[in-house]
């Protein structure tokens, strides 16, 4: 039984992994991540890669929405920008794989900052709707700037190459996506131990107070938009290498809602929440597919109603979590942990 951890310095209090058991579990987790591709089938590797991409994007959106309090419904469109940048760099310039990803992040960050400009004048729902507008305009650009984006046909991309190895199968891509995901999540976790991250949180809690405290609002809001879209851009780039074809339809408006839902379901404003939310929201449709597969002997039209049921479950998850567990899966996780910490005492 461990009741609490004694911290006797600010450093210890701010540490990312503060207790020995936590470090042990994280080490075990890292080993599991390393062993996973050798144990899993192609299908599970495919899912793992998709989950990794979604975690990157959700963490990015969490920086903007969960930590800075700026709702954005344009995350999917930003991912689209990243994907197109990667596709263009790969096919037109042939630059190396990791450089393309970095370029995707940077270009998307620039686009995101432009989209974030209205954030000083409008906020809350007006801003959310402004980002809807931006995402539709980006979608229009993808569709109609035919000379660059290939119009509705889209662009197809050769497999990624790293050190002369061709990364075509999920097994190979896993070794890029998984470390990159860990790196970006760690970077995000560290961000909130710095001055910038604390400024974001101050803006979320009360932007006027933050301004009175001497935080330049526009600069930090734009920075938040930039960082968040950087994550979206990298995620989009990975997405492009993963599916190897980018069309305007790849990043529909619903996909943006998907990421916002992942942030909410996971828990706004926690790093763990972004991870849990992305995993949960990616795996729920697969679980549904499984259930429908089991039901199909008894229900002949089970497969036909799969897509509407998926839509309903998607919406019901958002509603259910917001009403019953507004702090999301991260809060449930915390509660479970506290139960084991304090056992046999009641929490």
């Amino acid at each position: 039984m461990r009741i609490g951890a004694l911290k006797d310095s600010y450093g210890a209090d701010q540490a990312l992994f503060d207790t020995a058991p936590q470090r042990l579990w994280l080490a075990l987790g890292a080993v599991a991540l390393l062993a996973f591709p050798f144990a899993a089938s192609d299908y599970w590797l495919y899912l793992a890669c998709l989950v990794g991409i979604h975690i990157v994007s959700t963490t990015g959106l969490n920086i903007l929405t969960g930590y800075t309090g700026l709702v954005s419904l344009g995350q999917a469109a930003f991912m689209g920008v990243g994907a197109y940048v990667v596709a263009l760099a790969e096919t037109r310039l042939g630059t190396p794989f990791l450089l393309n990803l970095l370029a995707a992040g940077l270009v998307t960050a620039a686009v995101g900052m432009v989209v974030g400009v209205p954030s000083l004048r409008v906020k809350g729902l007006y801003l959310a709707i402004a980002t809807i507008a931006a995402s539709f305009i980006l979608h229009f650009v993808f569709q109609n700037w035919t000379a660059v984006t290939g119009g509705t046909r889209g662009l197809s991309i050769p497999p990624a190459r790293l050190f002369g190895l061709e990364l075509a199968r999920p097994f190979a891509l896993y070794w890029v996506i998984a470390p990159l995901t860990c790196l970006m999540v760690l970077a995000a976790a560290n961000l909130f131990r710095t001055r910038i991250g604390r400024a974001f949180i101050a803006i979320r809690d009360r932007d006027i107070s933050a301004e009175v405290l001497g935080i330049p609002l526009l600069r930090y809001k734009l920075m938040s938009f930039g960082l968040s879209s950087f994550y979206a851009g990298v995620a989009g780039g990975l997405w492009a290498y993963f599916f190897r074809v980018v069309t305007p339809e790849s990043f529909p408006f619903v996909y943006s809602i998907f990421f916002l839902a992942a942030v909410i379901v996971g828990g706004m404003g926690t790093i763990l929440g972004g991870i849990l939310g992305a995993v949960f929201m990616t795996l729920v449709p697969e679980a549904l597919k499984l259930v429908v597969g089991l039901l199909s002997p008894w229900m002949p039209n089970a497969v036909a109603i799969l897509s509407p049921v998926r839509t309903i479950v998607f919406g019901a998850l958002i509603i259910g979590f917001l009403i019953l567990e507004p702090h999301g899966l991260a809060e449930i996780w915390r509660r479970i942990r506290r139960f084991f910490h304090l056992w046999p005492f009641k929490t």
Partner: protein
Amino acid sequence: MEFDWLFFFEVTLAGLGSGALLALTALAFVLIYKATKVVNLAIGEMLMVGAYLFFSFAAGFGLPVWLAIPLALIGGGLLGAIVERTIIRPMLGESAISVFMVTIGLGSVLVGLVEIVWGAAPTQLPDFMGTTPLFIGAAYVSRKIAIGFAVASIVIAAFVLAFRFWRGGVALRATATDQGAAYSCGIDVPKVFSAAWIVAGVAAAGAGILVGAVGGISPTMGVFGLSALVVVIVGGLDSIAGALVGGLIVGLVEAWSGTFIGGEYKLLATFGLLLIILMVRPYGLFGTVEIERL
């Protein structure tokens, strides 16, 4: 090329017609926002459900139109009441963003339900308006659009009068201005919330029937709600006059850009307008400017 004024006039009339439908949808939105401060992103889906209900009553059960329309309106009102009691009431006092996300979820649930009950394929509503075209001067106007315009204008006028003179309308305005004060004056605020959602549900269902009659119905017709969202931002979230003016402006912009530049530019023009308005007048043309203090 010489500019064809007659054609321009016809396009303008069509734009005003669809603008009136947008205004009606925006009205349902403003009503909810005024009373409960909820930004209802599911307004397009509520409209769609109304249209599908009408489709069931008129085509499925073969009821006459004069019975099917009121039944669909009642269904829309019921939907509003259910939504308010089950998912909006528990969210009272939560941040505006959470409630906004709840309505996004609601929209998704409604789309799924409609697809399960009625199938995903687009269909036509039974024709109940006739197709004889109307002529204003020499300009051709589709009969459906003209009827839509007329109905929408009448309904909106009725709303404006109700807000001004009817006790319920006054109670709603009082609640919108100051909930605490309204409470202490003996206004049953939760009842006003319910009433606002019910009336908005009815208005949305009505708009759905009209929109469906003009353009057919499908589970994706909720996209119409996005244009209505632009309307309320342009006009101001809490202004009925704004919904009217915004509806007509957006209708015209959509019609002109759709006809003279190309159909794919329609959404672009609408959202471009939205961004311009947001930059110039963040609270819309007629919206209340919120003053924030520390």
